[in-house]
């Protein structure tokens, strides 16, 4: 397949799938949209892997939508970072789609849950592949609308409450994003990111450029839930069905992190000391507040939500240090984190199905009843905490090595301590949910029997994601190579710029 097909199919497929899922849902059979969903995400995974291999072989790929040349038209472009993110989106999308077969009730399915889910994936993929800032804004909107609908669909009170906080704070981010785009366009007359890389160097307004950079930082900071803009996340992620929490946890904040990485390597590199200095402080504060917040929680999904925040800090730290090794670490961390976090939410969901609650003091006895689930929990949990030989260990190792390399002792220390506190949180879930006996006695565990089909749908994605975590952990070299190539491209984006702008000087 040519690059042109590979670049737009990951976006067009989920849209087509959404239409199909919707029409299939109207036609009556409630299982049809589920299968459309699984089939579409499987196809997306396949196509995105082909895209990644093409990018790995031939360098960054770009197409101009509608044949309008950059910087006037909209460019779709994939370098290693973009392609890797698309692969991981499709993969976690597939896992959660399978899980959703047993998690999403008929009522929600009838209201178009599966179609909305695919629209969300389309938005995320679009954000990873676009080469244009305004287009990025549009994809953020697609994501926001789809995610808001998913959050409140089914409409119990808690969901509406969480959804309102989510959408209100995200709209603030959207407005900031739009203002920054307006200012940047007024300054340079272009919004194509590759073109901005070139033109921004010729603009002589350092103060204004830094102001715009900080506006973008604020907008994407809210989206990626960094300190002190994270409070919308723990207020909303624990209310919807588990499948929704899982896909949100895996992807939404990471789109913000991706946008930060893209902008602060490709566009805003004029005053690195200032902007990346802010980023470093934010990174440290995010890690600490996230992990402390988690320690104070007593509900599985709330603990996990706060851990998303603390983990975001690690990725931002990689970007802030801005060395090849640090960026390598950030990219590696992104990949590892999406897999692990989605998995933890899924395991939490299964634990709830078996024991009846997310509240830690109302559940227990899982280890005795389902030892296999304990193993499946331990893999992502220990990986999140950074225990060797799992994927999180390598991710943290690289980042800490990078910070020692530039003698950033404080952030290295923070990263280590936060890792330790993560172990504390994970062991809390372990002790409360798995180890201690169930408060209502052993009979309360597994009181609601799952059918065989449900068990397969719930457990298969967890096994898939856990095995990816183990594979990354045991054979990290190919993944490190991939991240290294990506870091190289990010720090020297000439190839990216050339392929977007084509023959233009």
């Amino acid at each position, binding site marked *: 397949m040519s690059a042109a097909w590979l670049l737009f199919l990951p976006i067009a497929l989920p849209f087509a799938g959404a239409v199909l899922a919707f029409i299939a849902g109207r036609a009556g059979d409630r299982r049809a949209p589920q299968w459309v969903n699984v089939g579409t995400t499987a196809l997306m995974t396949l196509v995105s892997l082909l895209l990644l291999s093409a990018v790995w072989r031939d360098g960054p790929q770009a197409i101009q939508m509608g*044949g309008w040349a950059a910087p006037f038209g909209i460019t779709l472009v994939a370098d290693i970072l973009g392609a890797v993110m698309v692969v991981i989106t499709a993969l976690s999308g597939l896992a959660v789609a399978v899980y959703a077969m047993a998690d999403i009730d008929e009522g929600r399915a009838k209201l178009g849950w599966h179609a909305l889910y695919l629209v969300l994936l389309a938005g995320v993929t679009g954000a990873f592949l676009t080469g244009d800032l305004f287009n990025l804004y549009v994809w953020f909107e697609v994501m926001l609308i789809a995610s808001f609908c998913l959050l409140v669909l089914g409409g119990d009170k808690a969901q509406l409450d969480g959804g309102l906080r989510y959408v209100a704070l995200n709209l603030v981010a959207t407005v900031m994003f739009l203002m920054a785009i307006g200012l940047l366009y007024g300054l340079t007359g272009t919004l194509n990111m590759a073109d901005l890389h070139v033109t921004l160097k010729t603009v002589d307004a350092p103060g204004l450029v830094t102001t715009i950079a900080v506006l973008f930082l604020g907008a994407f900071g809210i989206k990626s839930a960094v300190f002190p803009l994270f409070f919308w996340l723990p207020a909303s992620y624990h209310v919807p069905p588990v499948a929704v929490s899982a896909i949100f946890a895996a992807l939404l904040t990471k789109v913000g992190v991706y946008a930060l990485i893209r902008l602060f390597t490709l566009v805003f590199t004029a005053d690195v000391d200032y902007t990346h200095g802010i980023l470093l402080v934010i990174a440290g504060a995010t890690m600490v507040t996230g992990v402390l917040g988690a320690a104070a929680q007593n509900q599985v999904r709330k603990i996990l939500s706060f851990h998303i925040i603390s983990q975001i800090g690690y990725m931002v730290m990689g970007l802030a240090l801005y060395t090849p090794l640090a960026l390598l670490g950030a990219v590696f961390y992104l990949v590892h984190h999406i897999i692990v976090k989605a998995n933890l939410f899924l395991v939490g969901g299964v634990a709830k199905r078996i024991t009846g609650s997310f509240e830690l003091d109302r559940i227990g006895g899982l280890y005795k009843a389902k030892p296999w689930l304990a193993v499946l929990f331990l893999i992502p949990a220990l990986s999140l905490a950074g225990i060797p030989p799992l994927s999180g260990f390598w991710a943290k190792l690289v980042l800490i090595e990078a910070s020692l390399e530039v003698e950033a002792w404080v952030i290295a220390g923070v990263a280590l301590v936060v890792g330790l506190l993560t172990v504390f949180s994970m062991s809390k879930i372990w002790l409360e949910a798995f180890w201690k006996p169930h408060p209502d006695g052993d009979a309360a565990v597994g009181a609601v029997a799952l059918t065989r089909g449900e068990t397969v749908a719930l457990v298969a994605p967890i096994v898939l994601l856990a095995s990816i975590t183990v594979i990354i952990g045991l054979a990290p070299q190919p993944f490190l190579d991939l991240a290294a190539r990506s870091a190289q491209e990010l720090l020297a984006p000439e190839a990216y710029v050339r392929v977007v702008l084509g023959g233009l000087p």
Partner: protein
Amino acid sequence: MSTLILRTMGRLLAAVLILFSLYMLLRGHNDPGGGFIGGLICALGIVIGSLGEGSRRARRALRIAPRLIAAAGLAVALIAGFSAALAGKPFLTGLWMTVGGSHVGTPILFDVGVYLVVIGATLALLLALEEDAGRVNAGEVEEEE
């Protein structure tokens, strides 16, 4: 809500607005206008009609569920995009042919898709709101819940 004035004018306005929306849709080809604004105007027309006649009547007149209209619109827009890709050009590139002396191309197909998506989505929201408000007024559900 349903008064004689609203019913009479609602019908008239609905007809005029729907016709005007088609004009806006086609005008968007070379001038300001297009599928998005056309779709909004059309949905507005139907909603004004439904304020007078009741949303049940409006739904019956539509024949197709609003959300299905939106899905169909998305499908039409995708077909417009894919046909360029099948012809070996970048996604969404306009393909043109001459039918009876005038240029016809895929951009109009895309615009029709947008038109349908906007009508479908707007109506799904507004009709649902209208019905909910109707239930609240009729005392079927309590306002504070």
